[in-house]
């Protein structure tokens, strides 16, 4: 038995080492040429640029956080006309667990006067894997990010994590490969020009995960503890939730909530990039609609 356990332990060490070496040697090839459980490329969202811009910000009025609905929906150039200095820290599929990470990383540094927390109901139902991968691809590695990655319990995240370490060791740079129809605009916004033909999706049932609800509530506490006013915002999408009332009740309980699915009506053949993202034209309308709300909140804060 002793010899078995000793051999087993040695074998596990051997496997771990060869696994690391394997990823170091062929991880990138597998990632690009196969559908292997490994990802380390910023597919969309321009996170790396966004984070590096965030580090340069000195004064900020409004901080946007949330999923891609956040960084695709609010145009800082338009908001600038309202004399609002804004920055968008939305990241792809950002769930509340990742928002927590981002708030902890940036809130003290950016010190916004107002936070717009974009609350796409789907993010409450997500396991957060996609978002973690997105962050791993674009953010500097630190202990909190490593902890969050491990907590996902997801193989793809683990493989990507190992690959990222190999990038750090070998000093390789991530290949930037952004879609041509998209453009990063200073302030964290991603502009999508044009209308994409997309299939409609069926209405969904909102079934939030407890860990996401906990993270969301923790985030609100974090914001409140710093006395920063916030509003909750839902950007438009082209389907509905069958238990919409539950969502409204929950979010209305948590703060001042603006559901722009109800407040504005946008033609889905013109103003959407896909079934749940606004294109640039849609974002222009939403930004113009929300701007006075933000100005009002800012004024109230200043008074």
């Amino acid at each position, binding site marked *: 038995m002793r010899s078995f356990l000793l051999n087993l332990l040695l074998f596990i060490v051997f496997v771990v080492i060869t696994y690391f070496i394997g990823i170091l040697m062929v991880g990138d090839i597998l990632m690009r040429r196969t559908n292997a459980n490994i990802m380390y490329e910023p597919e969309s969202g321009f996170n790396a640029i966004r984070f590096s811009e965030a580090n340069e910000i000195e004064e900020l009025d409004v901080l946007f956080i949330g999923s891609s609905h956040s960084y695709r929906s609010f145009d800082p150039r338009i908001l600038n*006309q309202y004399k609002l200095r804004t920055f968008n820290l939305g990241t792809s599929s950002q769930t509340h667990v990742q928002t927590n990470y981002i708030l902890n990383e940036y809130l003290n540094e950016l010190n916004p006067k107002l936070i717009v927390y974009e609350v796409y109901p789907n993010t409450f139902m997500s396991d957060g894997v996609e978002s973690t991968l997105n962050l791993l691809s674009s953010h500097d590695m630190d202990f909190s990010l490593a902890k969050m990655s491990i907590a996902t319990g997801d193989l793809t995240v683990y493989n990507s994590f190992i690959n990222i370490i190999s990038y750090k060791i070998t000093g390789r740079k991530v290949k930037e490969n952004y879609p041509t129809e998209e453009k990063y605009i200073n302030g964290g916004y991603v502009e999508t020009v044009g209308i994409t033909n997309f299939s409609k999706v069926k209405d969904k049932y909102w079934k939030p995960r407890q860990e996401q609800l906990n993270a969301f509530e923790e985030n609100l506490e974090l914001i409140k503890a710093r006395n920063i006013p916030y509003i909750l915002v839902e950007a438009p999408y082209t389907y509905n939730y069958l238990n919409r009332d539950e969502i409204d009740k929950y979010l209305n309980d948590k703060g001042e909530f603006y559901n722009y699915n109800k407040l*504005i009506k946008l*033609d889905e053949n*013109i103003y959407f990039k896909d079934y749940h993202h606004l*294109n*640039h034209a*849609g974002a222009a*309308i939403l930004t113009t609609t929300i701007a006075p709300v933000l*100005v009002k909140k800012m004024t109230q804060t200043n*008074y």
Partner: protein
Amino acid sequence: MFLMFLSLIAIGIFLLADGNSDSYYTNFTSSKQSSLILGTSKAAQGLQPAVINGVLNRSDVNNFAFTVAHSPYGPVYLKAIKKKIDTNTKDGIFIVTVDPYSVSGRHKDANDVGLFRENDKFLATVSSVTSNPNFEYLYQEYSYPYIYILTKKCDYIDDDFLHPDGWNEVNISMKQKDFEVRNKSKIKSYKKLLKVYKFSDKRYEYFEKTISFLKDYGDVYIVRLPVSTPFLEMENSVYKEFDNKITSTSSKFNVPYLDMTKDDKEYEYTDGNHLYKTSGVEVSTLIAKWIFNHKNFK
């Protein structure tokens, strides 16, 4: 000393004026523009530059429409437009909205330019439409007590708001009961106006002069905005030949004309005459798509 102190306070308050202070101020503070929406309050409230810019993938369309009292077509409005336009513009877009009221007068002699009622209003009296801040406007034409500049900040967007792009957003209760009250009162006041309104050849001449002027800076599009049926009937009774007249101008200047009063679609109005903002998005979208098609397939 006291006067100086008062002046400093006044300047301080003036500096805080913005799109919430009244429905016009920021149209006098925005810079020179390369693309304009022109017309009366129907255009000011109904047409949203953000929508048009979005669809046309540009960012320069600005709403420079006021009210039927301030900006009917005439020498005053044309002069203001000339001051507002960036003369370096080559490919601007000009949405010239028109209806029988904006080319009519309410004096016995509707063609007497000297009697035009906008002659003593802000577009005539304020020399600059591009100064920021515009002390001249605030000093001469701001119609509320100055304290409103401060107090209205706290009820922001609760009534109306002039966006930096010139769109006058009106937030008003759209409950059926509230709408009916406003609608009834508006119909009553317009019926009274009908008795005095007369088509003005002179104003029409300036309407055409405006088109002619703008054509040097880009593409002009004439649009007649939709109104509810009772208002359409009243509009048409001002000048029965209106449509034919506009159509001939459209041909004469080779500029497209979109008559949206013939749309089958039912829009939402705040009072029967002005589009509510949700319908404003739809109407602005339709106009933008119409322009897009013209630009790409002309």
